[in-house]
């Protein structure tokens, strides 16, 4: 029962954060509400017995990445969007339409049949908790998924270099 309550709480926090991101005119507030949304997501992960992911969500996403966003916003001093008319006159309407449409499609899929037709895996939540979520994840990551894991390391490395190269001021 407590789990269910937690879920609804976190769901509300998350969705509210998301709405804030899109609706608040000041980018600074958008960043802050995105952080809120991420924290809510971390909570949702906790209800799904994904403790490691939840922690990573808080530390990396809500922590590191969002701080980066914050920096940029402050750096560029982006207070509010200029109030010039939108390029596409029906942009807002289109956006809403697409958003609602997508949501409708997904809803339709969710409620149109049995979702869990696939084969069950080897890691029921109870067993994972027994061993420890992080341990299981780490083991798989460093055995079966070693190559992608390393590749992601390379990707991040390249990303760092790329960011540096791009953002560096040219000498001329």
């Amino acid at each position: 029962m407590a789990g269910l309550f937690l879920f609804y709480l976190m769901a509300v926090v998350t969705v509210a954060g998301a709405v804030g991101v899109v609706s608040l005119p000041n980018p600074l507030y958008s960043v802050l509400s995105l952080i809120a949304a991420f924290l809510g997501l971390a909570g949702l992960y906790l209800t799904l017995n994904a403790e490691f992911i939840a922690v990573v969500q808080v530390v990396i996403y809500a922590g590191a990445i969002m701080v980066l966003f914050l920096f940029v916003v402050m750096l560029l001093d982006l207070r509010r969007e200029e109030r010039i008319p939108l390029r596409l006159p029906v942009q807002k309407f289109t956006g809403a339409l697409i958003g609602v449409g997508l949501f409708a499609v997904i809803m339709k899929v969710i409620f149109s049949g049995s979702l869990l037709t696939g084969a069950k895996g080897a890691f029921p939540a109870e067993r994972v908790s027994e061993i420890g979520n992080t341990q299981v994840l780490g083991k798989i990551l460093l055995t079966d998924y070693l190559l992608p894991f390393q590749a992601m390391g390379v990707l991040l490395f390249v990303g760092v270099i790329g960011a540096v190269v791009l953002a560096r001021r040219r000498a001329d």
Partner: protein
Amino acid sequence: MSELPLITLMVFLPLIGGLLLIFVGDADEAGRARVRAISMAFALLTLAVSAAVYAGFRENFAGMQFVERAEWIPRFGISYYVGLDGISLPLILLTTILTPIVLLYSWGEVEKRVRLFQMALLFLETGMLGVFVSLDFFLFYVFWEGMLIPMYLIIGVWGGPRRIYAAVKFFLYTMAGSVLMLVAILWLYFETGAETFDILVHLDKPVHYALQGWLFAAFALSFAIKVPIFPFHTWLPDAHVEAPTAGSVILAGVMLKMGTYGLMRLAMPLFPTAARDFAPLFMTLAVIGIVYGALVAMVQDDIKKLVAYSSVSHLGFVVLGLFSFNLLGASGGVLQMVNHGISTGALFLIVGMIYSRRHTRLISDFGGIARVMPVFAVFFVITSFSSIGLPGLNGFVGEFTILAGAFDRSPFFAVVAASGVVLAAVYMLWMLQRVLFGGDPSPANLGLRDLGVREWCVLAPLIALMFGLGLYPKPILNKIEPSAKAWVEQVNRRVLHVKPPPEPRLARAPAPVFVEARSLKAVRP
């Protein structure tokens, strides 16, 4: 028969030669000479191999010879499958003979980007030979399209003032046609369920009648553009006028034959009933082309354009022969493809020779030059008469057999077509009169050099062939005959009128919610 893979050797020798040229510089005169010598050597080697093929060719045998086969993409039933028969052999020989001649002609004529030019010609030869020997749709299509690129370059880089327009028109027009063919090929592939691109397999079991019309139309349209059959001919004058001489020779000599060859090898025997249904249309168009091409050729003021329109007229004869559906027409058609290649090729060479001297092709700029260029005049007259179809020269044998065959099928069309014989004399002789004869040469023409040794060597083999095929066509005709006979049987087959009932298919499992099926078709049949 030797065990050497002669066809592969023949097809890819020019390609190898062309690739070798990458390593030879053409910056200085010596380099250019080297480039030319190497390409010439490879063209001659190819000619030698084709001569070996000719020598080893089994007569009185209708099927494919020198067959080679290797898996290429087994997943889709695609293989490297080549071979030749009496229909393709003459065209192969024509290709291997014309290429060295064209190279020799260009030896002193093309000075711009020599290496690229020679490479383009060699690649072109590989493409053309490939089309003639392919027994696999996929392979055929690869060569068919591959051929376009070097030709596009030849027109677009070394052509006349409006070369870009002409090259793009040529490319797009033929491309548009071949895309239709591709669709038809794929359709055929899926329709028959044979899971193979093997042409011979498809030839053995024609599709049912209901489908033939569409597929034939797609194939035939593609080839009709290439031939070109009236009214798809307008790219031809532009391409010819702008193309450099070498390009014109190859274009008229060999590439136009791709269209008629395609009709003969693919479109007609694959869809025999449809071909017979369409025959009146094609015969009408062929006859219109014959008369129309001749009439329009008559009033041209540019020699090259005149020759180009004469090609429209001549190829009308070939199409007429093919759609006669009898042995005379078919053999005559094949023979006439070769004949047209020789005589029109020679005509374009001759026009090129005079153009490189005077830098004009307007008939009105000439007159009376037989006096200053007597040898040239002799060659010109012989070639023109070959084109007119004078008995004793090559053109006659082909035209006669075609018309005899066509007459057997439809006297009306044959008679109208035969009037093209008169018109051919009109436009050719009128042109000769205005270029070679009739008055003293104008001062600008007085200083014209007669043919040099190189030009002599370029024309002499073609002239010899004109006489040879005119007086004794047997060595070619008796190779054509068995295959043509088999072809005639093939195109006169009857086929199932409707689609055979489908085999019971497996009942499909209830559709999964998400995208599990591979193709859209499976989700929404």
